[in-house]
């Protein structure tokens, strides 16, 4: 069981989210630092040199939430965070839409920076989401980026 329980929120949703509202949720009596990460849909795919008109995200209901909860629990154990929120959007998105929110709070800033970074790195490699980009009736399933696997190495104990 988690001691001094942090506030925790995990949401998979179609709707947009409000960063100010989520930041307020993370602030507890013993919070001294909050770090938020917001991922945005890019309008251009640099790797394949093409414009993205829209994107669709799908997930594996049940498994996605449980994988995110595992990541959150590990991050709490390592950095004693006071609040953790992961919101990931699914469904149809357009360039400049917000796609993911990872926010953490802690007593001191370094734990918040590291905790947020850790959650995002693990989310990219473990949480079952898949993106398909759409451009002039062409669909392209986004392929896994090996650099995301490399990013995990810095968290080895």
């Amino acid at each position, binding site marked *: 069981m988690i001691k001094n329980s942090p506030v925790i929120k995990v949401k998979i949703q179609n709707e947009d989210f409000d960063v100010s509202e989520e930041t307020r949720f993370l602030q507890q009596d013993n919070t001294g630092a909050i770090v938020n990460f917001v*991922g945005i849909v890019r309008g251009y795919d640099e790797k394949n040199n093409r414009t993205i008109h829209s994107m669709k*995200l*799908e*997930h*594996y209901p*049940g*498994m996605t939430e*449980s994988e995110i909860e595992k990541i959150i629990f590990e991050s709490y154990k390592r950095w004693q965070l006071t609040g953790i929120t992961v919101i*990931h959007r699914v469904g149809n998105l357009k360039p400049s839409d917000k*796609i*993911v929110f990872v926010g953490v709070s802690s007593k001191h800033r370094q734990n918040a920076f590291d905790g947020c970074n850790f959650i*995002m790195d693990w*989310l*990219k*490699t*473990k*949480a*079952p*989401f*898949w*993106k*398909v980009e759409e451009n002039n009736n062409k669909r392209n*399933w*986004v*392929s*896994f*980026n090996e650099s995301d696997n490399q990013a995990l190495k810095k968290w080895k104990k």
Partner: protein
Amino acid sequence: MVIKYFSWIKEHIGESEELIDIPSDITNVDQLINYLNEKDSKYNLLFEKKELIKIAVNKTYSSFDTKVSNSDEIAFFPPVTGG
């Protein structure tokens, strides 16, 4: 047994899930893959490089030697691309 597919694998197989009964001598994921490959050629391309496919048994990441039975939910999907 329920088998679920996601992303391009779902499109390749042509459905998001299938209900199948496996014979009692199929006891792990690897044997299940061999069984499906022999059952229908639609699985051949999917499992051609099976080490690139992610496997979940009852919504937990699993491997070729994970035990399976008719009461399980299996999922095959490509490496994840969220975030």
